[in-house]
């Protein structure tokens, strides 16, 4: 019912099924609520700074500010903004982005996960800073903590895109310094590695030169080489989102510790829905490890969808709980959460996955030959999962319906994995 690995039924390509639901939206978890609270404190601090600080003329009127970090997708027309948002947040198969239509107005999505995000996809043709006919309320756009994701089509002439980006950075540096600027050099599939780096260097220099001419140094500009046809777009989003997570350091410490005690090579905490990793241990970044762990999450989602999303009959349960077992199914299992282990053939290297809550899963690559130690490892993992849950825990008294956007009552107790095959969210 409330597993991270459940989602609405959607077939990749099955003409007989209905179009996939527009957005995977779920009720907030305790984890999310907690982050929400921590986040709220940060946000208030930022806005306080804004008020005390430089150039905010009026008290900020952000009536819709719900305290959700905001990801703003901007860039030239056809640079790939809508494709990115559809692939990452709506699970659209990349090749189906060919059918996307040009975006006419700002598309606002709300992404409910371990933390709530807003994703705003802007039409390429409008310039929010220079739109005399309908001036935009800047605060309404940039007033929240978050990131501006500027998408540049690497397979196209990018001079104008860079010029517009420069203008945008200068605006933001003046009034909204809390916005991280993330440049996605996009559509790099099919480009050679050398060429990719050349482009990145060229764009970086063009931006630095322009900014320093304008007297701006050390603007928080980050670059990512991305494509919707591989993992790079998910990796880039992971990095973007990690910067917005409060107390990330503590999360990382938990994972680093786990790797040491269990002799794991690498561990990731995944947001199952988006395959964004929200934290990893302190060993160096490794794209290959991220890819295999991310694909592992995909396989588990698919298995769950195919075999875990239909209601078994009462007779089935009755038979299985009858002789010789004489036990409720719930008591016959060792772990009430989704758990999985897989052994790579080359060096008998296992990879394990363990569901943490309804949004998150822990995936770790283990050292060669450690499959025999699974029982001890599982015990350690149990402890860490508990720690993670505590990390995201909110005191019971704070769990009031009003604290939840949308007014849905939060789940009391641990409601994960005890359902019996209800498609989607269940009750």
């Amino acid at each position: 019912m409330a597993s991270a690995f459940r989602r609405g039924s959607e077939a990749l390509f099955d003409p007989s099924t209905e179009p996939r639901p527009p957005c995977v939206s779920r009720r907030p978890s305790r984890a999310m609520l907690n982050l929400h609270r921590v986040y709220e404190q940060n946000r208030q601090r930022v806005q306080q700074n804004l008020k005390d600080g430089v150039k905010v003329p009026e008290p900020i009127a952000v009536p819709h500010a719900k305290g959700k970090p905001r990801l703003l997708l901007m860039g030239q027309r056809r640079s790939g903004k809508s494709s990115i948002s559809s692939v990452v947040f709506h699970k659209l198969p990349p090749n189906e982005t060919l059918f996307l239509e040009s975006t006419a107005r700002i598309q606002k999505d709300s992404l409910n996960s371990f933390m709530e995000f807003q994703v705003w996809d802007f039409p390429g043709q409008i310039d929010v800073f220079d739109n005399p006919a309908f001036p935009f309320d800047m605060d309404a756009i940039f007033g929240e903590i978050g990131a501006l994701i500027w998408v540049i089509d690497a397979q196209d002439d990018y001079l104008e895109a860079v010029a517009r980006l420069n203008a945008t950075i200068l605006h933001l540096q003046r009034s909204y310094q809390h916005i991280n600027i993330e440049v996605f050099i996009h559509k790099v599939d099919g480009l050679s590695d050398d060429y990719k780096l050349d482009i990145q260097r060229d764009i970086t220099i063009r931006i630095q030169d322009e900014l320093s001419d304008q007297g701006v140094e050390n603007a928080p500009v980050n670059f990512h080489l991305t494509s919707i046809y591989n993992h790079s777009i998910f990796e880039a989003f992971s990095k973007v989102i990690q910067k917005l997570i409060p107390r990330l350091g503590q999360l990382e410490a938990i994972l680093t510790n786990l790797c040491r005690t269990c002799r794991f090579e690498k561990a990731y905490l995944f947001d199952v829905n988006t395959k964004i990793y929200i934290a990893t241990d302190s060993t160096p970044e490794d794209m290959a490890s991220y890819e295999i762990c991310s694909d592992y999450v995909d396989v588990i989602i698919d298995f769950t969808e195919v075999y875990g999303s239909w209601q078994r009959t009462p007779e089935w349960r009755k038979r299985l709980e009858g002789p010789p077992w004489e036990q409720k199914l719930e008591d016959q299992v060792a772990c009430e959460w989704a758990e999985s282990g897989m052994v790579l053939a080359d060096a008998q290297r296992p990879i394990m996955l363990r569901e943490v809550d309804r949004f998150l899963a822990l995936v770790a690559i283990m050292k060669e030959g450690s499959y025999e130690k699974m029982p001890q490892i599982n015990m350690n993992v149990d402890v860490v999962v508990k720690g993670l849950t505590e990390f995201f825990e909110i005191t019971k008294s704070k769990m009031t319906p009003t604290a939840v956007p949308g007014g849905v009552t939060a789940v009391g107790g641990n409601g994960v994995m005890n359902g019996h095959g209800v498609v989607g969210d269940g009750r």
Partner: protein
Amino acid sequence: MADYDQPTMGASTAAAAAHAQLKKVKKQKVLLMGKSGSGKSSMRSIIFSNYLARDTRRLGATIDIDLSHVKFLGNLTLNLWDCGGQEAFMENYLSQQRAHVFSNVGVLIYVFDIESRDVDRDLATYVNIISALVQYSREAKVFVLIHKMDLIQPMTREDVFDRRVALVRRKTAEAVAIVRKQKPEVSGVGVGGLPGPGGGGGGGGAMMAGSLPSPELSTPIPDLEVEMQLFATSIWDQSLYKAWASIIHDLVPNLSVIETQLASLGVAIDADEILLFERTSFLVVSKWTSPEGESNPYGDRFERMSNILKAWKHTCSKYTGTPRNAEQFSDFEYKMGANFSMFVTKFTTNTYILVCMPPGEARFNSAKLNVAAARPWFRFLDGPMIAPTAGIGSSQMLSGLAAAGGEVA
């Protein structure tokens, strides 16, 4: 224990009956035809050579015929004739090489590119190919793949496919009619089915076919019919696996033995579903589903599992740096709390097995033991040499079950 005797005995009898056949390696000539660029070499590379869909962009046009021998399980070899589709080659197949290409064919796979602009011409060529096929290989089965469906808007795919199916069926009937030495009933069937371009194409096909050499056909064959199946496919999703699993399904020898034994295993370990995959292609060779498992709403789950596991194999190969054709994973377990458990594991030399079953630790462990114990039972899948007698298989099976029972108590 007595409960398990019934299916086991059934399997033994069937195994004994098929025993004589076990010694032979079956060879099958499979023609892969269709216009140039329609995707023939792409699908062959994905299914049998572990290409990724996007790797196929690198494939060049096939020159003349690309012959490959695909070993499928121990006792079936597919002689795959990938026939380059450029017009000059096609004409050559229909004239000079006609007897060489079209005799002794077990299966013809004909691929239509759904995006092709010149449908009439494609269909005319198709009619000629079918005529040649039924002329030289009356028993051949025909699989028509309406390919590149990913390029069609998802909402209209079903319609587009249905319309194309009707058209192809009508053309097939025309082709057969030509060989029967009867005039194709263009006025009767054609106009009613699809006016305009379809009718024109029919005329073209009949004319071209009329000019072909057909010396062997001295007498009409009134009862001639073509066994045909049509599939909507794309290299970008699991539809490809559905089509190819159907293609190989009828070619696999001893299918009934495999099915019976899989069923006994399924009942014995209390599974909800068992799938048996060929190890390289991950095509489903055989499957068994419990009555409970039949209520699974995902009718496409078999090809989906092929696709998922094949993709997973790629991921592993990329990570380990070992060749794609090498074995990539040996064991995959997944327990979804009190909902269900499953595992995918190396089974015989040529196969992987997937078992989906009810939750429970003890049940899971005994199922794994029993699957391991049942391995010798299926060893005939690995080659004609080592077929065990049915007796050995069943006794090992039973001893495996005894172990499981002990664990429960």
